[in-house]
């Protein structure tokens, strides 16, 4: 039988992580993603007890989280569940809603600053046309980053998740790491 080796979105055997001064970039290979969309006239469910957030907001509850992606649409996240069928678990919690597996479509990079908000906001200023001050903790948005579309989820003052297309993981890592590297000087 063929021996298959699991690889991350970057093609590595283990999730990549690299530090640039106060900023650490790491691939979050364990995060499961599934999108949830309401049908016309449907009320928002509360999957796993999560109250789905309002426009451009994100919520977390333990290992689970949700962020707004459009009107009546959210992305639901589950830490450490990437290798399980999270979409099926979510579908059972949100009957009648449209649920689609997204783990295999996206790559998640977590950017953490060890020196307060300044390095993180400097990195954002270099890369995205969004005012970092308006993207405070608990906010999320989707925007363009070097012609790639990405979700930005500000998990805390010093932590930002950049969620981009999985097939462009290498380009996204290059964009983030180059910008972080240049901030060191």
């Amino acid at each position, binding site marked *: 039988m063929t021996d298959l080796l699991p690889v991350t979105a970057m093609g590595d055997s283990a999730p990549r992580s690299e530090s640039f001064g106060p900023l650490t970039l790491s691939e979050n290979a364990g995060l499961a993603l599934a999108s949830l969309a309401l049908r016309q006239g449907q009320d928002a469910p509360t999957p796993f007890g999560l109250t789905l957030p309002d*426009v451009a907001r994100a919520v977390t509850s333990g290992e689970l989280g949700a962020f707004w992606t459009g*009107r009546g649409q959210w992305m639901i996240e589950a830490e450490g569940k990437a290798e399980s069928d999270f979409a099926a678990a979510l579908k059972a919690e949100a009957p009648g809603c449209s649920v689609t597996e997204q783990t295999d479509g996206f790559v998640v990079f977590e950017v953490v600053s060890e020196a307060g908000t300044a390095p993180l906001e400097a990195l954002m200023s270099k890369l995205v046309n969004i005012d970092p001050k308006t993207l405070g903790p608990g906010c999320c948005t989707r925007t*363009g980053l070097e012609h790639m579309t990405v979700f930005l989820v500000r998990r805390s003052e010093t932590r930002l998740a950049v969620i981009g297309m999985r097939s462009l993981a290498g380009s996204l890592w290059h964009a983030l790491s180059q910008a972080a590297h240049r901030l060191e000087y």
Partner: protein
Amino acid sequence: MLIPHPLLGLRDAQEFTYLGDASLLNRPDPVAPGAEAAFCDYVFLRDNPAGVHRELWFHEQGDRSWLVVTRNTVTHEILSAELASDVKAGAAQ
């Protein structure tokens, strides 16, 4: 150019793609008499005003909503932006 998205606030026009005249929302009734002529006009005829124009923009690198943006094509001043789904729902009532 910044587009005042009704939900997300001011967003760079680079995040959007442009479709054209918002009259595309008013699709003719395909079973009405004279539907063929009405569709011919709908598909091929556009006004091209120098001045205030209502147009469709798609927030592609954003929440992927369609907007009806009222823009002055001479000055590029943007007068308003509404969600196309709201415009369509309002017209149906």
